């Protein structure tokens, strides 16, 4: 396999904003909707995805010369499933509370499309270093996506930010006639609304950006 395609640094940077998994590729939406009502669960999910994605990408890249085209998806799934199960057991052993909160969503990382997409797009074609950087970049992008949604949902829904780990209260507790937390933000509809609005904001920023770039080239 030759080293054509983006370089390691490009892969890394692309994952964070230009090809952000949540807002640009719209992949991994199930955990994005399901575990973003607190920062703790969002960060645990992002960490799990980071671990699984790095391991699977590196391993896939190492064995890329041996892959048969019609069996590659099978190998990807096998690899991902193995690392997800390891991550799940580790969480159950060392972060039991978080593991209880996340419940089935940790095993469901197996079907998170970000991971299999990165194996297919990058790791199966490029070298180990590029695959590693790609995995880290994409995971950071995913983490940014989850954090942006979880920040809004936790602050409005619970009035806290990192409430379980750091105990930060953003909105002070007051009498119900002055202010109240928004239960809807804790529930799944809050995730849909927040994701939709944030995606709108991202599109708006991008449209502004490209309009300015166009103007700049026209002027030049």
């Amino acid at each position, binding site marked *: 396999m030759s080293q054509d395609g983006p370089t390691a640094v490009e892969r890394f940077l692309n994952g964070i904003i230009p090809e952000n998994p949540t807002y640009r590729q719209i992949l991994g939406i199930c955990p994005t909707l399901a575990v973003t009502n607190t920062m703790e669960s969002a960060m645990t999910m992002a960490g799990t995805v980071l671990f699984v994605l790095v391991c699977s990408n590196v391993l896939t890249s190492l*064995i890329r010369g041996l892959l048969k085209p019609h069996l590659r998806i099978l*190998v990807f799934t096998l690899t991902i499933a193995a690392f997800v*199960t*390891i991550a799940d*057991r580790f969480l159950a*052993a060392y972060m039991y509370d978080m593991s209880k909160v996340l419940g089935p969503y940790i095993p469901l990382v197996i079907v998170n499309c970000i991971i299999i997409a990165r194996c297919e797009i990058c790791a199966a074609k490029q070298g180990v270093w590029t695959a590693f950087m790609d995995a880290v970049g994409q995971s950071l992008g995913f983490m940014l996506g989850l954090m942006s949604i979880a920040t809004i949902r936790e602050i409005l829904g619970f009035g806290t930010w990192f409430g379980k780990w750091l105990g930060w209260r953003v909105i002070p507790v007051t009498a119900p006639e002055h202010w109240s937390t928004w*239960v809807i933000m804790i529930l799944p509809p809050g995730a849909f609304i927040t994701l939709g609005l944030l995606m709108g904001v991202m599109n708006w920023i991008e449209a502004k950006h490209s309009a300015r770039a166009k103007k700049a080239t026209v002027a030049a």
Partner: protein
Amino acid sequence: MKNSYIGQAWLVIVLSLVFGAALAGVQAALKPRIEQNKLNDTLGQIPSLVPGATTGQAETIGGQTVYRALNDQGEQVGWMIPARGLGFADVLDLLVGLNKDLSRVTGLSVLEQKETPGLGDRITEPRWRDQFKGKPTIPDLVVTKTAPKSDSEIQGVTGATISSVSVAGIVNGAVARLREGLRE
């Protein structure tokens, strides 16, 4: 060789074996810790539910798993029953603490519930749950809408009558089953 099944699939087979071994290793190494976590989750509640108790011992009585609550010296000071039953929205999982002769409730905690947020889920608030502390188990506990007048009355959560009645019903049922089981 190139077109035989083995030639096609050897990588999958090798990977399966390697991953299988790795997972077995992880499971073997972490299992005791995970089991301990799960046990602690239940046993860790005992001191807050049964005064004076520090740990517990599982036992099956009358068809349900119950825990004898033990103090530092290993003497029994009470009981803890993991009880479940139907709430308003879904199944409620409760832990009920009782004193040694089952005459009074010593504590109640809600392990799992999916009641209406803001209404039914207020059964998890300590202020509501603490009403059960010290209540006699005979006669059955009753939920009222107003401030309780007699000893066996519990004031329901406003706007969540069904959730409140369910909790009281689950507690009554669990205590009755244990009493029945001990009599046999």
